[in-house]
């Protein structure tokens, strides 16, 4: 089963995504902040990370930079879910090699479709 990591500090968002991804047949890992995320990636090596930007400790961009700096994790697909909709944020994400940038609130169906596409 394909492992997907959800990283967000908002518990209700985590709750909903956890349910959706399980239903869709993925193994779900959860992290509440950037540090936990990096830890989880190192131990579980997920195929895809659903990542929030504004988080305590290490933020979303920090996690992306970490992933892209390690050859081992370079291939991990990244979807950013963020309430930050400014062009600068989106451009920064693109330049870092993020696969998908989705603005909160997003359509759960589109999110699932994107995950499926990226992991196909």
């Amino acid at each position, binding site marked *: 089963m394909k492992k997907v990591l959800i990283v967000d500090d908002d518990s209700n968002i985590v*709750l909903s995504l956890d349910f959706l991804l399980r239903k869709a047949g993925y193994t779900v890992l959860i992290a509440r902040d950037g540090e936990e995320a990096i830890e989880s990636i190192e131990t579980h090596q997920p195929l895809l990370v659903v990542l929030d930007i504004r988080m305590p400790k290490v933020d979303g961009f920090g996690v992306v930079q970490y992933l892209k700096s390690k050859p081992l994790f370079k291939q991990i697909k990244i979807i950013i879910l963020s309430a930050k909709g400014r062009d600068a944020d989106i451009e920064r994400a693109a330049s870092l090699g993020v696969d998908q940038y989705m603005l*909160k609130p997003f359509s*759960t169906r589109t999110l699932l479709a994107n995950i499926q596409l990226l992991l196909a």
Partner: protein
Amino acid sequence: MTGWMIIGISFSYLLLLFGIAHWAEKHKKRYLNFFHSPYIYALSLAVYCSAWTFYGSIGRVDTDGLDFLTTYLGPVIAAPLFGIVLKKMIRISKTQGISTVADFISARYGKSSFLGVLVSVISLLGVIPYISLQIKAIASSLSIVLSDYALIGSTAYIPLYITIFLAVFVLIYGNRHIDSTRQHIGMVTAVAFESIVKLMAFLTAGIFICYGLFNGLDDIFSRGIDLPVYPQLTALSKDNSYINWFSMTVLAFFAVLLLPRQFQLGVVENIHEKQVDKAMWIFPIYLLIINFFVLPIALAGFLYFDGQSYDADYTLLLLPLKASQPWIVILVYLGGFSAATGMIIVETTALAVMLSNNILMPLVVAIKPLKRFVLKNAQDRLRSIRKFSIVLILILAYGYYRSIAHSFKLSELGHISFVAIIQFAPSLLIGMFWKDATKIGAKVGLIVGFLVWFYTLIVPSLVEINRLPQQIVEEGIFGLSFLKPASLFGLTTLDTIPHAVFWSMTLNLLSFIAVSVYTKKDALETIQAELFVEVFKYYPTFVRGTESKGADDPLMIDKGAETEALYSERGPLSTLLETFFGKAETVKLFKEFQQQHSDNLAPLGNRSFYYFVEQRLSGIIGSASAKVMMASLGSDHHIDLQEVVEMVRESQQLISLNKELTETTAQLKRATEALAAANQQLQEADERKNEFLYTITHELRTPLTSIRAFAEILYDHPDLDDEQRREFLQAMTSEIERLSRLITEVLDLERLDIIKEGLNLQPLRVDAFISESVRAVSQLKADRNIKFDVTVDPAIVEETMADIDLLKQVMINLLSNAVKFCDQQSGHIGVNVWQESAKIVFEVTDNGAGIEEELYDKVFEKFFQATQANQGNAHVGSGLGLAISKKIVERHGGRIWVAASGKAATSFRFYIPLSN
């Protein structure tokens, strides 16, 4: 104290004057506002009070009763007229390049050399004895002060040394520029300082005599009234003659405007006409104060010396001397010394300009070889002529003092001088307002007045010292009894001075008017009459005179290259200009002219330029000589009234326009700066607003995300079990609550920003307020083990006014934060309220994990959330609670802050001031 010490003090005082003048000249740019202030100007005008009045007033009481008051009354009556007369004199002088009374009269009547010479001669004859009088006052006061000391050697030459010192002072500070229309800041400041010294000295001595030697004014007057001389001392004037009193007042009235030193300080040294407005009341007040003790001191002298003979002129000095009060003696001596030196300095400066510009320069200009000699190196030679004049005047004054002056009382000499000076009144003052006054009228009037003055005052003095036969006084000249100097045409009822005033002024005035009516003006006279009488029409603004004018003027349009080009076309005019002004100054003149006539780029050979140059040259060599000098350039530059009027108008319009432009530019600059600042503020506010909105959208998106996700889950998965459905619905509800709370708080925050005065003030009862707030949060802690400790200091008696609802919001916010963050297992929350000076302090403490110190201020920022400290959803607030609390407290005039934070004790405090 030794006699040498007193001499030392005199010279130290003179050195101090040098120091002050030097300091002022050095810093005149730096303390511009100080040196240009109306106070310095008004104080300098008080040079009017010379040693003659400082010592002599008291002496006059002795002989003429209250007559001394006329010397002050005249100026006090004249002062309100300064606004009309003095301002007009200033405007005329500044626009015409006039620097002396002689030049004023000469310029008014077609720049007549003869009038310039005549007025200068009268001034010199009238005023040099007056300067001698000051030297005499210094010498006499010195000999009185030194009388107690047996000095080795002679002190007779000390007045000479003092005169030499003063000559050096005038040479340095009264003769700084060859352009005599320019101001002497150093000299004026020193003179203003002297005015303060003499006033302080007089008042101190007055207080000492009246309250130290006697038991106050009442004592002096109650004892004085029994003196046999009392009626005489308090009479209006000698024999109580009202006409005497009136004539003396008239005399002083004109003297204050026309004395060379008053003209120098009032007109030439005037920096802006606004100074006159303040001087109009400060100067009379000064005179009033310095006079206050004259009569009591005169009486005190009589009472103190009780029949012994003493020199009443020096009562002020003699009383403290007899009472062995050396410090007061020295102070009085310095006061008199300052009165004398101030007068000598300014009078010499003014007379020297007259002597050089109005007597010597016309000679130089008229005598060809002399002219060639001077023009060869005009600047240096002019300077030498000015220096020579200063030295000559002081030599004459000192000589007069040595040979004749001892024979007269102080007050007599002063008055003789005054009478000579007021002969200028008709031609100068009436000439300022009456266009039909003619040159011949002025000449005749002045000559008549002068002759009467000489005959009625000087002839008797010469007789008195046996220089003329006695018979003239006793029988009249050639034995004609109606020509007796003291009773002309049989007028026997007046004293010498009023008699002279009456006849000289009457005959002067009548002949001036009569001759003026029957004679015609020539072309130049017509022009000058028009420009004098209508000066405010042609020169509606006060344009030049300050030193800043010239190349440093920021508005000066720099046509440097063109000017240089024009300048290098060397014509006779530019040669002449360079001779007198030097090269740099000449270029400046060209620039200044072009500034005033901006469309006129060819000054050379241009009539308005000739006119302009002539005005400037007047300041250096006098109007009459300037006219002759310009005429000698050969070509015919004769212009008629119409042309002059056009020229003046044109340049004035440009100058006013320029002034307006400067002002407008300055205003525009200020407005632009204000706008830029406002714009900056707006931009910052705008940025804050943008940031705020961005943050709000971000905060709104987060709960919306969950709500949408759960809604879609519920919609897409109808097969969910009940428990899960309930869980999701509950999560949705809590997110919706979070959303609406956020909206409410954002609105609250905005409302607090918008409402300016909307506080709904009610009396705050602290007990009820706290218990209600605690009750409101008790629901939050219901399921947890949290202990509340509430302490309200019973000492709080005063009720203060507050918006209870808003303040409760603050309290509830702090309490609910405390509930959120206090220890999860055994929570403890303390509430303390007490009174401290004029405030009520509220404190909420919890035993949670605490806040890092660098976040103490940050927690009050909008959307700051203590994210590190909380991870569970239960804690999530909007991040606005403390920001709102801060606003509310500040609206009450109070402050909120984190008082302490550590393990087990985080306390927030806020206070509101007690309202009375």
